């Protein structure tokens, strides 16, 4: 194993230009994939923020008894889809309207806004069908005057989200395949550059496993370095965008680490595939 490590490191020393080229190629492939990932991540976050605001508002008829409302709050709160349920009295509604509308606060008089029950659904259950279903159930209470949830708006949001998801998966797959192909051929080049060495190793009686080991280590190291470089490039891009154009979110540490590991894994698999193919042919 020690020898395999030494051989792998020697490969960097003996062919520094080819090694640097491989790492840069891996880095740029992963960088392109990473940039796309960042765009997808930010779109998803933006949609998530909008989606978090999806809420059902059921207006309560004036003069409804507190007991009836409180019983309904208990019932609705027990629906499995419901995250929170809250009663907003006429007084609270007025206070909120005044707070939100600032300078127009004096146009509101007491009693102009109805009391309401506000329902928020659990994440993942804010799709049009569920929202509509819950609204219908709330409507059945006889003290409910009207239920609103911005039907059109929720549907549009969901359509947008579905398009973004499908486009994300399709483009992401294409980017990932391109990255794997480029990285695979980069490593294949490194293997071909050492074809002579491999044939000599075989002639003097090295086992295939022994021949493979330094290449796997080399691929793993190149992939890891490429991954780190790609992450650095993505970070710089995000920082420049944040300073001059728009502040966007960067990968979480977990995702960043996953990216580097993905680079390492691609390097390892690319090497395994290239060396394996070379050995089976020779």
């Amino acid at each position, binding site marked *: 194993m020690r020898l395999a490590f030494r051989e792998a490191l020697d490969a960097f020393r*003996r062919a520094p230009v080819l090694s640097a080229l491989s790492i840069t190629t891996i880095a740029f492939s992963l960088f392109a994939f990473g940039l796309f990932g960042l765009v997808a991540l930010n779109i998803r976050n933006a949609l998530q923020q909008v989606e978090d605001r999806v809420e059902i508002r059921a207006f309560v008829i004036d003069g409804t008894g507190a007991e009836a409302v409180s019983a309904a709050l208990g019932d609705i709160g027990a629906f499995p889809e419901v995250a929170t349920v809250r009663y907003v009295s006429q007084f609270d509604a007025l206070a909120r309207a005044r707070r939100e509308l600032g300078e127009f606060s004096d146009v509101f008089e007491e009693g102009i806004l109805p009391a309401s029950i506000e329902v928020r659904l659990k994440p993942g259950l804010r799709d049009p069908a569920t929202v509509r279903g819950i609204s219908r159930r709330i409507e059945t209470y006889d003290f409910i005057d009207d239920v609103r949830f911005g039907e059109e708006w929720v549907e549009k949001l969901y359509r947008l989200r579905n398009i973004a998801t499908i486009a994300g998966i399709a483009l992401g797959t294409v980017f990932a395949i391109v990255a794997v192909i480029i990285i695979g051929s980069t490593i294949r080049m490194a293997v071909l550059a050492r074809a002579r060495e491999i044939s000599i190793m075989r002639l*003097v009686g*090295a086992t295939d496993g*022994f021949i493979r080991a330094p290449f796997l280590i080399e691929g793993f190291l190149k992939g890891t370095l490429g991954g780190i470089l790609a992450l650095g490039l993505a970070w710089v891009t995000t920082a420049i965008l944040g300073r001059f154009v728009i502040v966007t979110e960067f990968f979480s540490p977990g995702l960043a680490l996953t990216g580097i590991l993905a680079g390492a894994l691609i390097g390892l698999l690319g090497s395994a595939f290239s060396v394996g193919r070379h050995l089976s042919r020779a």
Partner: protein
Amino acid sequence: MIRFSHVSKEYAKTGPALQDVSFQLGKGEFAFLTGPSGAGKSTILKLLYLEERPSRGEIRVAGLTASSIRGNGVAALRRRLGIVFQDFRLLEDRTAEQNVAFALEVTGARPETIGPKVSRLLTQVGLSSKSNALPRELSGGEQQRVAIARALANDPVVLLADEPTGNLDERATRGVFQLLRDINAAGTAVLMATHDLDLVRRANLRTLEVNRGQLVFDTADGGEGRAGEGA
């Protein structure tokens, strides 16, 4: 040590390369393998070190039957053979010493044994003073000596040499041939493919002659003195 029994080799694209070849090479024996280019000399050697597999017939090398060897068995067999080529096949970016050590390292020799063994091998081939030279700093004859030292690294029972003097001038040829004779005298069987008929005639050793894929003459069967006549 080596036994070919009715061995044939056919290639899908180029047709038959060897037809019904049978011969034996005993322990510690020396034999030339001669014949014109394309006659099948290299194919015989490739079959011996399992670069190729026979289409028909049986080959035994160093006590093993070629057809039963798979996977790491190929590497195990090659460790019992030494192989030398016309083009030396040295690693250009490593010194003479590192080239020889390479054969020991890749076969898992204990690290502490490698240094002393490499210097003993380089002394044996007469290159102890050039252990730190790169192949390009050595003459053809010297490069072939490094290749021979490498071939001897794993104490082979048979040394296979494919035109080892093909790229060398007469003086270097004599030196390398003498080295192979010395190695043979120490007990290693040697099978040397060559088309240097002067060398073959002068040496007056067992000669196997192949032509168009067939073994046409073996001095072990047909007496002496005819080596190379058909080439």
